[in-house]
């Protein structure tokens, strides 16, 4: 078949030609591939190496350890402890529900907790660890760890938790920590706040000293794979998280604890009230207590609804910081203010007596003295010693409310202090213009009379009463209270009262506690142990009326406090300082509905002042009189 053979020949050449064409094309394509490889691996290699490192390395935020809060002697009031917890990284599991079921079989998760976990999971990116269980005890923690392989997405970790070891007596001062709210995050661009496991101070010192306590975040370079799982860690000491600084308070933990114990009653639980003990010279607060207390640890570990309800429905309002935010009529403790105003005005001769018949008529109103039958003839000193209301009704009309208010302000009333924790109220020092502004009505002489015995519009906190007393005791300086050691404090302004007038007031206060017949007289106010025996104090009682007493009741006999419902009983108030001759500490105490100031508040104040002196060693020093050394 010659045709077939020639046909074959033609085909062969054609195929060879076309093979060459395609072969050349193929070499071209390989050339392009080779060139591309060259471009990627030589020309752009540096860029891709960077990208590869970016892939490979992540920077994990390291949370700083929070600074501790200590008392003046270094006793920890808020500290960190190992906190075993479980977190879930949602992207590591597709069965979030099942995993949570399994966790709750080992350690129960309440429906409410579960809801909030699921909400967190929904609201955060899938790689952010979500807290599932906090404060897990060691046994449960190990049990969960054994089961970890069956709990995909769950990571167990030992983090830092906050603990308040002091039985809650510092709860009001310290406040508590919690997760940053949306508002917190908006006001602070620290990226730490966005970490779901990070906690910031919410109230009290924890909030006020947040910047000091927080520290700063660190970075940990980690090598991760495509699914975000850490393959290797590259720790670098340079980028460690910086621990927050400790905050030292001026408070004395044991004294505070002691003071809290004094509020205990036999049958009605803890009394409600506040006590504030202040250093007369420096303004350092040794005790700042509000009773009853609550356990701040509950706020850290998560408050249950029943805890919350119990606290909110308690008539003694445990959450409320009465020492700085509770405004009470100072009652007779305001009489020192009136007294000092009288002396400073020069209008009143302290030796001049006023006759107390038990009441004073002003127009068609009758103002009663607490002593129905009257005190008889009273000079200024006796009036304070016996707390004669009539005397102060009388002189206040002469000196006028504005002079009284001026002295009150200079003694530190009607002012809210910056003691670093928030919540202090300013109380009320009424004046004519204040009433006009507040009620739109004119001042009446009756208002002056009420104010002269610390009733009516006057309101003060235990802290303010303590400051007032400290200033009276200090003579020279307008002492300012302070709570945090190292807190920047303005220089104390000069008090600018005539020292003789102040000495007169102090002497009158001494007569209240140290002269037989004084409303708070005790022979050895602090007990008879050698350290405090012989130390004298000065003070003033106050009984704050919370109800009106009708004429009918006066006629038939005023009901005794013990017979009244708790809510209607008088507030028991006491202020004082010691030692009398060399004042060191001043105290302001209010016991809500505690009855007469000469009883509950005076007892507590004496005990706390005495304990403060004992702890300070001051009593001992004074007991060592020079003669004994010789």
């Amino acid at each position, binding site marked *: 078949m010659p045709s077939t053979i020639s046909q074959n020949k033609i085909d062969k050449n054609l195929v060879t030609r076309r093979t060459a064409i395609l072969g050349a094309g193929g070499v071209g394509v390989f050339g392009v591939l080779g060139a591309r490889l060259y471009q990627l691996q030589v020309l752009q290699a540096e*860029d891709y190496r960077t990208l590869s490192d970016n892939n490979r390395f992540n920077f994990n935020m390291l949370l700083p350890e929070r600074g501790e809060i200590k008392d003046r002697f270094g006793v920890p009031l808020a500290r960190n402890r190992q906190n075993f917890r479980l977190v879930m990284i949602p992207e590591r599991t597709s069965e979030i529900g099942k995993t949570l079921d399994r966790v709750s079989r080992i350690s129960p998760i309440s429906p409410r907790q579960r809801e909030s976990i699921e909400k967190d999971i929904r609201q955060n990116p899938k790689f952010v660890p979500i807290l599932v269980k906090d404060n897990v005890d060691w046994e449960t923690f190990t049990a969960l760890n054994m089961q970890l392989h069956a709990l995909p997405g769950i990571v167990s970790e030992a983090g830092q938790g906050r603990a308040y070891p002091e039985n809650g007596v510092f709860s009001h001062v310290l406040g508590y920590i919690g997760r940053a709210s949306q508002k917190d995050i908006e006001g602070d661009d620290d990226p730490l706040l966005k970490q779901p496991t990070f906690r910031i101070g919410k109230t009290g010192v924890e909030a006020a000293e947040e910047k000091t306590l927080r520290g700063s975040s660190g970075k940990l370079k980690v090598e991760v794979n495509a699914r975000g799982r850490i393959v290797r860690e590259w720790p670098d000491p340079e980028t460690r998280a910086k621990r927050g600084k400790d905050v030292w308070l001026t408070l004395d933990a044991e004294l505070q604890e002691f003071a809290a114990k004094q509020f205990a009653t036999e049958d009605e639980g803890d009394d409600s009230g506040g006590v504030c003990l202040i250093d007369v010279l420096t303004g350092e607060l040794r005790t700042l207590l509000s009773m009853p207390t609550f356990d701040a640890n509950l706020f850290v570990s998560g408050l249950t609804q029943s805890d919350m309800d119990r606290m909110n429905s308690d008539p003694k309002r445990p959450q409320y910081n009465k020492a700085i935010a509770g405004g009470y009529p100072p009652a007779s403790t305001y009489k020192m203010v009136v007294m000092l105003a009288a002396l400073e005005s020069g209008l009143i001769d302290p030796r001049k007596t006023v006759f107390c018949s038990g009441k004073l008529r002003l127009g068609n109103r009758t103002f009663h003295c607490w002593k129905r039958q009257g005190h008889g003839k009273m000079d200024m000193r006796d009036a304070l010693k016996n707390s004669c209301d009539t005397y102060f009704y009388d002189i206040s009309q002469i000196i006028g409310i504005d002079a009284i208010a001026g002295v009150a302000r200079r003694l530190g009333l009607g002012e809210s202090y910056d003691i670093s924790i928030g919540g202090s109220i300013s109380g009320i020092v009424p004046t004519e213009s204040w009433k006009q502004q507040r009620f739109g009505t004119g001042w009446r002489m009756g208002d002056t009379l009420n104010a002269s015995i610390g009733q009516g519009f006057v309101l003060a906190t235990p802290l303010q009463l303590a400051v007032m007393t400290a200033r009276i005791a200090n003579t020279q300086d307008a002492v300012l209270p302070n709570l945090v050691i190292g807190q920047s404090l303005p220089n104390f302004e000069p008090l600018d009262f005539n020292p003789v007038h102040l000495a007169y007031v102090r002497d009158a206060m001494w007569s209240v506690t140290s002269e037989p017949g004084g409303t708070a007289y005790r022979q050895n106010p602090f007990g008879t142990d050698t350290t405090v025996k012989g130390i004298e104090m000065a003070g003033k009682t106050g009984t704050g009326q919370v109800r009106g007493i009708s004429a009918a009741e006066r006629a038939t006999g005023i009901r005794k406090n013990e017979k009244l419902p708790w809510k209607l009983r008088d507030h028991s108030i006491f202020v004082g300082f010691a030692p009398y001759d060399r004042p060191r500490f001043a105290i302001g105490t209010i016991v809500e509905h505690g009855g007469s100031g000469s009883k509950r508040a005076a007892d507590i104040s004496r005990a706390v002042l005495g304990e403060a002196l004992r702890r300070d060693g001051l009593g001992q020093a004074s007991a060592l009189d020079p003669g004994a050394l010789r």
Partner: protein
Amino acid sequence: MVARGGSFQGAVSASGGSLTGKLYEINWLLPTLVGVLGLVGVTMIFAATDGVWRYGAFQHFVRIGFGGLVMLAVALIDIRVWYRLAYPAYAVGLIMLIGVEFVGLEVNGSVRWLDFGFTRLQPSEFMKPAIVLALARYYHDLPAHRVSHVAGLLGALILLILPMVLILRQPDLGTTLLLATTGVVVVFLAGISWRVIGFASLFASVAIPLFFKFGLKPYQQERVWTYLDPARDPSGASYHITQSKIALGSGGVNGKGFMRGTQRQGEYVPENRTDFIFTVIGEEFGLVGGLLTIGLYMAVIAVCIWLSLQCKEMFSKLLVLGLTTTFTLYIFINLGMVMGLAPVVGVPLPLISYGGTVVLAVMGGFGLMLSAHLHRGIELPRTG
């Protein structure tokens, strides 16, 4: 036909030559190069699976060995047998593809597999050599003057389009395009006139956009778009390309060292045991390793072309060149994809990527080439 130089040129085998003689006559350069590529594959799979033999390297090793035996067996079988089997093989391939249509296994949204109980097969892989066999036979039988005629064109077109449609329906765009290109190359080699080529190109420039619009599934269109603009969806489909380029680029000239690839360790490149295995080569052995691998492939292709030149029969030539084309296209598409020059279509790197069917298909293909070369002295009949 007269045997050249007295040595075996197929004439002996035509009369039943000895098996050892045939084995001796096989072009051993090709199996050697193929074996080397297979071992490169074993090594890289070993690296890609973090050095665990049983995660693929061992299986690949066994498959390369078994594939080698298949290759030699296929090579020893007389080319006339393959010539006769060309159409039946094509028919079997078609039937299996139709079978996939009805009883195929679905994997990842595509129905590509047939389950035979003892093994699973991808008929589309089988179809790749089968279509070459069929087209080679077709053109072998077709007189040259009818190659560019309407009837001649139509026959080739039907042979090509039937399996293409069936594979596209699975859907498997990569294989469809591969099949189409292989077919076009064979038609081109068969001597189609430039005039027809001109018309066809014109037609294609109109048909391809239409096909894209109406013939492709949304995810297939997406792949093409992603290729055209990788920044479109950085976490989605182009994630493959981006991470793949990072792996290659960060390898630099010398690579990060065997088993030291951080992109690989971090599992940033998905499928780096199969389709994206070149990223492991590029990252751990750098430009040097990449170019050496490409060089090996070029050597294999060059040997294949050289084999085709020695063949005398149209069937043999087209068979060898067609199979070479398929092999080459695998490499082009895969490397182009890995380097970010072609869309991600899921084509393995032959002999190196993990995957049993592909290894068998490719090595069986080499067996056919070797057979064509071994029996190059035998004259094939022309029934056209």
